């Protein structure tokens, strides 16, 4: 396992020299220079559209772009690069997944989600439910703050067709028992869709081993550029569904009233993709793999447990999430007695500490916790325990001002 040197990281991430303590990594991570350089190189030396030109520049751009698809395939352990669809981010990936699966649903069918979902894995299904006359059902939090896979069997009927759930809650860092959920759902013949936005950046993922039908994540939470995401889809399933967006690059033959489609994955990627972004993402993947996903996982787990331990010794701070803290990865959520999360975040900002305050696009989770909002701190491998100490010191200062 590698040991990370902060001064080395500062060389690679110019942001880390700006004096800020950045603890909003669940929203987006900072980018190393090599990612920016890769984008710049594309824009300054071989900028051309992909899959179009015959000239060598376009071929070069296409080659770089498609190499990243292969990198992603290896990174998540997919069997074929045609299972890797580039999107604009996790939200688009999950919307695309919902639209593709919706083709296989009939009026009266049921979809199971959890109370832990980010709105990006809830609203798309609400839209599908309205359009297709299907029903949404929810695995609810238990008293231990967890989702129990056994509840699947009590919800399950012949009409149940889909399980869509998050791997790690973006509000609390709670890691759901995802393998059990997927296995139980598959035994009952359900389609399984996983929002892995918060897990792919933190832990090694093998999609083939997980066995879900579709898995969504973003590049920008993994040191890559914004505007790039991935939808992994099991090939056998993707081959059976119709595209839901049309345009250039996804067709085989076009006539005025009907057309035929090209092969996967291009069939599901109409229009010019975010070429520079994908190329930058390729460099980000190379960068995090050089550090090593095991090192990243270990570093983030240590930081999370340190933060939880330090905060739990403060009687005026209330931690939210599963009661068993060891289930939390990379993200912690809390409230401070007598102070609104917005005020805590504002006062921390005055000390150049970036944390998130609000409902974190997870209002059902807030409702379960019985709060309108929380303060959220989320970690990346470039954070240190000093960052957490600084945050706690600043929270105490804020409390003295507010309470």
């Amino acid at each position, binding site marked *: 396992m590698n040991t990370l040197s902060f001064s080395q990281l500062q060389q690679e991430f110019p942001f880390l020299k700006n004096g800020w303590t950045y603890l909003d990594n669940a929203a987006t991570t900072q980018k190393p220079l090599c990612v920016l350089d890769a984008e710049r190189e594309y824009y300054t030396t071989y900028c051309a559209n992909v899959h179009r030109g015959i000239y060598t520049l376009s071929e070069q751009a296409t080659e770089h772009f498609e190499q990243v698809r292969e990198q992603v395939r290896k990174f998540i352990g997919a069997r074929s690069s045609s299972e890797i669809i580039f999107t604009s981010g996790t939200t688009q990936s999950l919307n695309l997944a919902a639209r593709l699966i919706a083709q296989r649903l009939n009026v009266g069918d049921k979809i199971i989600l959890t109370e832990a979902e980010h709105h990006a894995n809830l609203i798309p299904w609400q839209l599908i439910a309205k359009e297709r006359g299907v029903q949404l059902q929810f695995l609810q939090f238990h008293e231990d703050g967890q989702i129990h896979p056994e509840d699947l069997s009590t919800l399950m009927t012949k009409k149940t067709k889909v399980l869509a759930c998050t791997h790690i809650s973006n509000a609390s860092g709670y890691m759901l028992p995802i393998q059990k959920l997927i296995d139980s759902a598959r035994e009952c013949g359900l389609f399984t869709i996983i929002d892995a936005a918060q897990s792919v950046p933190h832990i090694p993922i093998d999609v083939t081993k997980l066995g879900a039908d579709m898995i969504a994540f973003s590049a920008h939470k993994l040191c890559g550029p914004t505007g790039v995401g991935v939808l992994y889809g099991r090939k056998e399933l993707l081959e059976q569904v119709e595209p839901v967006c049309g345009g250039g690059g996804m067709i085989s033959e076009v006539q005025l009233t009907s057309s035929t489609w090209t092969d996967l994955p291009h069939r599901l990627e109409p229009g010019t993709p975010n070429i520079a972004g994908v190329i930058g993402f390729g460099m980000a993947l190379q960068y995090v793999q050089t550090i090593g996903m095991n090192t990243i996982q270990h570093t983030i787990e240590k930081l999370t447990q340190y933060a939880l331990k330090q905060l739990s010794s403060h009687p005026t701070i209330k931690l939210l999430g599963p009661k068993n803290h060891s289930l939390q990865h990379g993200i912690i959520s809390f409230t401070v007695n007598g102070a*609104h999360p*917005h*005020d805590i975040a*504002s006062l921390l900002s005055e000390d150049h500490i970036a944390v998130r305050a*609000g409902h974190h696009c997870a209002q059902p989770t*807030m409702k379960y916790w019985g709060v309108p909002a929380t303060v959220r701190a989320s970690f990346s491998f470039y954070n240190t325990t000093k960052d957490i100490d600084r945050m706690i010191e600043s929270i105490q200062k804020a409390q003295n001002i*507010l309470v």
Partner: protein
Amino acid sequence: MNLYHEEILEHYRHPHHAGTLPDADVIQEEHNPLCGDKLTFYVKFSHNIISDVKFSGEGCAISQATASMLTDEIIGMSIEEIKKLTTKDITNLLGVELGPTRLKCALLSLQGITRAIHHKK
């Protein structure tokens, strides 16, 4: 000036006109989806004039202090005068410049009062 200056904190800790009005002419609920804050305004009119106002609900220091300061300000004001209130008037009341996110917290009260006037029969 510091966002959390003493006057704002004083209004936040001890808000003026906190509570409800059982005989309110208009009850107006406002919601800030960004932070989940909810404020309810109870407004009583005497002809064209706001004769009394109270507010309830929880929120951050900025939204609470603004509600407290604005309710101080508008009692006795006419509907026409209130319609002319702007964002600048609110930041003047608070005595601070606000970034776009926190400005939404501050404007929740103005929105509540403006809508309450709109709903007056």
